[in-house]
């Protein structure tokens, strides 16, 4: 068991290496002069030269990589061109709203989606199933920000149940936190719920075709137990997998949602960086989110061992 964990941890190293390499090469392999692109259309030659030195682009490429890698391992994700603050500091400042939003979204989505998917599988090919799948495909297709604006139009501007935008910390005022976080969570959850519900339904349906389900019925087991104990128990692995993979989608959605709802988190940081062409921030955030994603999937991999004894032994 320990060797399994160790193996999984070690196998993430090459993946992280690829991520680091890709991000490193992004800047250096782009057409034209990256320093000029970052500096913008109206930059002077001096400004371009300054940016080039600041980003270390004037050094031979191997030295650049080694220094960059060294910085990375020390937790240095670069320095913002405009604010001159280390990217890691900026991330630390903005991380709370984003993590709160992500947390509420994941929790809400899983609580809603898994039972929906199981229900759809149980009542497969009936109107219940179709209804769930129709909702799922809509959630999957309507872009997050469109959903966001429709929600604002309906519930904030129209019914005035929720504020139009903004964020309040749960540590200062839980009530306000909830009212501000509801619409963004709903907008962001739509796609996540759709994805999880679809995969849950498909996995449970597939499991229900297995022989051991027939054995359970042959023992006289009640249908609910067959579904919840036997079927779900075996469908758990693919469902947990998709929850992990879905986080990648979530990250993209967070950026947009924070933009629509004016939440001062990491997503807004990205948008500001785009407008100001502050490339180190974009780069730093890519690294941050990627490593987060890899860590999350590692935890999920290890969680599999709890779910499936065949992996353990």
């Amino acid at each position: 068991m320990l060797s399994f964990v160790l193996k999984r941890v070690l196998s993430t190293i090459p993946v992280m290496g690829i991520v680091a390499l890709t991000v490193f090469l992004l800047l250096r392999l782009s057409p034209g002069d990256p320093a000029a692109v970052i500096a913008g259309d109206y930059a002077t030659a001096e400004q371009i030269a300054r940016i080039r030195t600041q980003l270390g682009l004037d050094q031979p490429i191997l030295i650049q990589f080694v220094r960059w890698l060294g910085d990375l391992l020390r937790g240095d994700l670069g320095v913002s061109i405009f604010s001159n603050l280390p990217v890691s500091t900026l991330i630390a400042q903005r991380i709370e709203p984003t993590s709160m939003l992500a947390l509420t979204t994941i929790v809400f989505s899983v609580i809603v989606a898994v039972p929906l998917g199981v229900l759809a599988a149980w009542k497969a090919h009936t109107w219940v199933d179709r209804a769930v799948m129709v909702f799922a495909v809509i959630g999957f297709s309507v872009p997050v920000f469109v959903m966001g604006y429709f929600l604002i139009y309906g519930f904030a501007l129209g019914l005035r149940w929720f504020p139009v935008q903004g964020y309040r910390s749960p540590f200062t005022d839980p009530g306000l936190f909830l009212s501000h976080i509801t619409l963004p969570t709903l907008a962001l959850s739509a796609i996540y719920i759709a994805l999880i519900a679809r995969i849950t339904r498909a996995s449970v349906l597939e499991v229900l075709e297995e022989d051991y389900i027939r054995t359970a019925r042959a023992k006289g087991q009640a249908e609910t137990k067959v579904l919840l104990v036997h079927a779900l128990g075996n469908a758990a692995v693919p469902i947990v997998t998709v929850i992990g993979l879905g986080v990648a989608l979530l990250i993209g959605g967070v950026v947009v949602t924070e933009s629509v709802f004016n939440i001062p988190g990491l997503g807004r940081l990205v948008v500001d960086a785009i407008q100001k062409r502050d490339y180190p921030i974009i780069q730093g955030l890519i690294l941050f989110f990627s490593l987060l994603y890899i860590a999350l999937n590692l935890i999920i991999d290890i969680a599999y061992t709890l779910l499936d004894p065949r992996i353990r032994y």
Partner: protein
Amino acid sequence: MPPVLNVENLTVQLPAGADRLNAVEDVSFSVAPGEIVCVVGESGSGKSVTAHSIMGLLPRRQFTIASGRVLLEGGELLTKSAAEMRAIRGDRISMIFQEPMTALNPVMKVGDQIAEVLDIHTDLNEGERRARALEVMEAVRLPDPERMIDAYPHQLSGGQRQRIMIAAALVLDPALLIADEPTTALDVTTQAQILKLIKELRERRNTGVLFITHDFGVVAEVASRVVVMQHGKVVEQGTTEEVLRRPKHDYTRMLIRSVPSLSPPARAPIDNEPIVLQTNNLTKTYVSGGFFAKRRVVEAAKDVNLLVRRGETLGVVGESGSGKSTVARCIARLIDPTDGAILIKGADVAKLSASALRPHRKRVQIVFQDPYRSLNPRRNVGASITEGPVNFGMSPQAAHERARELMRLVGLDPDALSRFPHQFSGGQRQRVCIARALAMEPEILVADEPVSALDVSVQAQVLELIDDVRKRFSLAVLFITHDLRVAAQVCDRIAVMHKGEVVEEGATAAVFGAPQHAYTRALFDSAPGRNFEFGKFET
């Protein structure tokens, strides 16, 4: 004594568009306490549907029970509600299925799966359930029940899993046990043990057993009475003696005659023909494990020495894991041997590179076990047959002509070359595969369990075809099988393999008549119905 089970005029309909109206029609039979009734038939005979109807496990979207009665200990089953049926299943009737590998929930301990039956039908607490589970695990003769009760299915062997299934089925002492092909997926030696177990339990608990099978050997071994089904109807039934020795219906007679006998016919020795295929110390070892996993070495084949002469059929007999398939695939160079020599008319092909191997590929052709996966479903059979010759430079027209000839030879319509595999039956597909192999004009034909997936009536025809082809083209045939009866009938010589090694070898009659090695003896002793002479009718 009143019968445990009474099936009266049962008719189950298939959905519209199926190949016939009813899955089963007007089926009637009964099972008395302590009696084993075998329902015998080929695929599509409706025997499984009958069993599932009795249990109430038929998927309602596909099957409708049109008429008839099913009485369990006098009580009508078909009119019971879903809840009432659930109360009966596992308690008064139990069922065990064919594939022990997939019939157990992989993420649940086997002890819990037995205890589940108790949880559903009794009020016993957890400790009492565990005690009862241990009891029944001992009754089915599982080794070390205290440890095994907490194991997971993947940690057990096929035979052990089937015993767990039997344990779960019998823990509440049902009046009727339905066994749907319970030993078909097991090795011959394991099968013998399970059959013995079922007979024993039946005696001790006086359970009525409804045993579904397609294997007449099993029927001869365990049945008190036999019910023969074809196309959903019962064509004949009676005591084992009556049906096997004095069959009345033509179909029954045909089926029984198709069962190969365990006594090999006399065969002329083929000593003066040249040796076409020879393996010297053929070895295949699999090594798995890397930095962190334990290093596992599996010797799939070890120092295997075989030889086959022109016009001769050498049978390689063994159970799963014996290495026979590995040897076949090494010889066909589908996998690379770790060590040893493979001599085709003297030329060693064991270590040749892919390009050097190419000219030799023509000389060895292989027919596989699964007729449903041996042909590319997206290409018509003509393309599959002509692929080989065209690879070696034959023009497409000439190849097509040859394909037509070969289709005729294997007993199929040459115009069918433009059809796709799914339009042929299993037996027909096997013929196409034989035609494909012959298209290359090989000297050696490797047949890897070519009839194991076919019904017994079709089996006889395909075996005849292989024999015919061997004589016509003077082929050397390497015949891999686990079925002793088939081996007895078609092979001139046999080699018995066990755990990667050849343990005994010789002329078929000699090996069958006087087996030398302990394993060979155990193997023959396990053959079901070995004391029964099929086909010797008394009418």
